[in-house]
């Protein structure tokens, strides 16, 4: 059978952690149109069902869902096994789960911060370990992780969230350094403001991007094997400036 010339460029068997997130959905829709198969993981079974129907309707070849709280690290190994059982193999894992949290509460109470670190760092770190080892063994695969521009520098308004993402960035740098030569693509995704339920309480300014725009950017980054991608691209420049401010000035800035 002649192959569609586009096909080799897109991953076909995709595991999505936090599949009900707006960015994950936007990315998955683009892949569903290209006939991809999905194993979707999230906490809310009703939302999962809606996402599954949506992807199926848009052309997904196969969709399986699993209701799971990814804070439960012991479940990660069995999750990987279940995914491989369902799809045979995995071409791409998209880690999209995370919470914005509440900075005021997290700086007042370390246990609140701990819960955020668990969801935003310990959980993805565990999944990254499982996935990296799986992909390394196969000598191929794409490990795409949604981080944030907030991880580029700590600011008083959201440094707990930022710290969880910064840790994720460093972990991904190291994993990439370890397994890139095995043929595994490790992608760090740093979105700026995205108009999603996570940011619904923020005033929508001109810097807000639509999830669909970010989804397209992720797909482009997957195809072109980028290492770190800012979405939309102008955030690379903004964050360059933010990182360049000397600490003795930065510490007095109101951000």
């Amino acid at each position, binding site marked *: 059978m002649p192959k569609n010339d586009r096909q080799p460029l897109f991953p076909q068997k995709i595991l999505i952690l936090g599949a009900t997130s*707006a960015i994950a959905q936007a990315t998955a829709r683009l892949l569903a149109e290209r006939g991809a198969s999905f194993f979707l993981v999230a906490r809310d079974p009703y939302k999962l069902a809606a996402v599954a129907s949506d992807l199926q309707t848009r052309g997904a070849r196969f969709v399986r869902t699993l209701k799971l709280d990814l804070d439960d690290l012991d479940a990660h190994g069995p999750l990987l096994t279940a995914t491989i059982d369902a799809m045979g193999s995995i071409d791409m894992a998209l880690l999209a789960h995370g919470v914005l949290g*509440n900075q*005021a509460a997290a700086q007042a109470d370390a246990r609140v911060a701990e819960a955020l670190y668990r969801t935003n760092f310990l959980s993805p770190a565990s999944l990254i370990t499982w996935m990296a080892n799986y992909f390394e063994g196969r000598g191929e695969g794409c490990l795409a992780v949604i981080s*944030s521009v907030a991880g580029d520098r700590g600011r008083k*308004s959201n440094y707990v969230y930022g710290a969880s993402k910064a840790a994720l960035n460093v972990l991904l740098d190291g994993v990439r350094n370890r397994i890139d030569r095995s043929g595994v693509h490790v992608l760090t995704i740093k979105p700026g403001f995205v108009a999603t*339920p996570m*940011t619904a*309480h*923020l005033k929508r300014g001109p810097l807000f991007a639509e999830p669909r725009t970010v989804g397209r950017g992720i797909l482009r980054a997957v195809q072109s094997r980028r290492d770190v991608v800012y979405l939309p691209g102008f955030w690379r420049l903004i964050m360059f400036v933010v990182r360049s401010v000397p600490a003795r000035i930065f510490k007095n*800035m109101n951000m």
Partner: protein
Amino acid sequence: MATVLPETVPQPPADSKQGKALEPSFESWGRYPKLPADLRPLSWTTDFPPRERPAGAMLPVGAGRSYGDVCLLEEGTLLHARGMDHLLQFDPATGILRCEAGVTLAEILDFAVPLGFFLPVTPGTKYVTVGGAIANDIHGKNHHIAGTFGSHVLRFELVRSDGSHILCSHRENRDWFAMTIGGMGLTGLITWAEVRLRPIVTRGINYRGDKFVGFQEFLELSRQAADVEYTVAWIDCVSTGKNFARGIFMQGTHAETPAPLTRSKEPKLVFPIDLPEFALNKFSIGLFNFAYYNKQRAKTVNSVVDYEPFFYPLDAVLKWNRMYGKAGLLQFQCVLPWDEDQRGITQIMKAITSSGLASFLAVLKVFGDVPSPGFLSFPKPGLTLALDFPIRPEVSFDLLHRLAAITLDHGGRMYPAKDATMTAAQYQAFYPGWEKFAAYVDPAFDSAFWRRVTGRA
């Protein structure tokens, strides 16, 4: 610097009275009236009813493409359902699509056109949601053949603020079905709907444009084109004398020669700024009407055109309502039942031309007699005229009241989705069934429009 980085806004304690949530503004397409409201996004059908019931009334809204205040609510909570945008099922054998109510017609086209399907009825913009299309029971260029959008809705789910789910169709809960189609979002939240799409083999439309002068010529063309699927006329509402009621009668059918069914490109043009008020004046509008009429040189033109410019000429420029400036615009759309000598429509046109306020794109169309399934649906057999006016406080409102009075005199009615000015007395005369409908309004729901036309504003 503080404004450019994503940050967490400290959440006020739940019991704090001063810590009011941010109020993102929500405007209707006419940008008039401007009413503050809390906006609560609904991303999932299970997000409603909300766990914490807001203090005031609620109203579901979609893309905000209705013109007046049917999608507005002062001191209440707008349930922004645009995020409920999942496609749920499609059967290519029957063309039946089930999707959530926040899906836009543009998204349906993006999905369905490559599969060889098209909307059964489409308005002049594709950026409306399915929920909004049902709630306003919208119509299109094929009304005389296909009826309203509601005529192609097979089933939908209505969720009431008390948490009850009502499955509505021609067979189940028929009263709720009829009250919700054209029910202006007041009967409950539409979570998902089933719509029957129609097959196409190409994006192309066989187009024919005929110039006409006067209602007689328009009606003659309408008679000749009675069996043509899509018909509509652009009419010049500025010219008087021998050019009175001149226009271009446009007709189209889906072409039958198969051609690649690609997806539409996203428009790149965005109207960049709010134009100052003086930009639209008698001279500039007159010039536009002259140019538009004379763009077509021959009396009759035949061609094959893409469906985008045929159905959605204004969608090519996003945010085109900025042309009317910050103040916004007023829309007027009426339907007048048939009368022998077109006295009503002539009176309306004369009132418009003599006001000197007319706008660019006035649209004239014959409505057919396919009955609407909606109890309060706007279309009925006769002639419908739609146009917009810039807001000039001293004159625009007077003119609209005069037009409403003429409409009422001639047994017609006006379209709530395009209205910001009709009085309670006028509405109640246009829609005598309103009291029966009121019994189906969700007790927690209200809208600025509904308050106005029930005399509570």
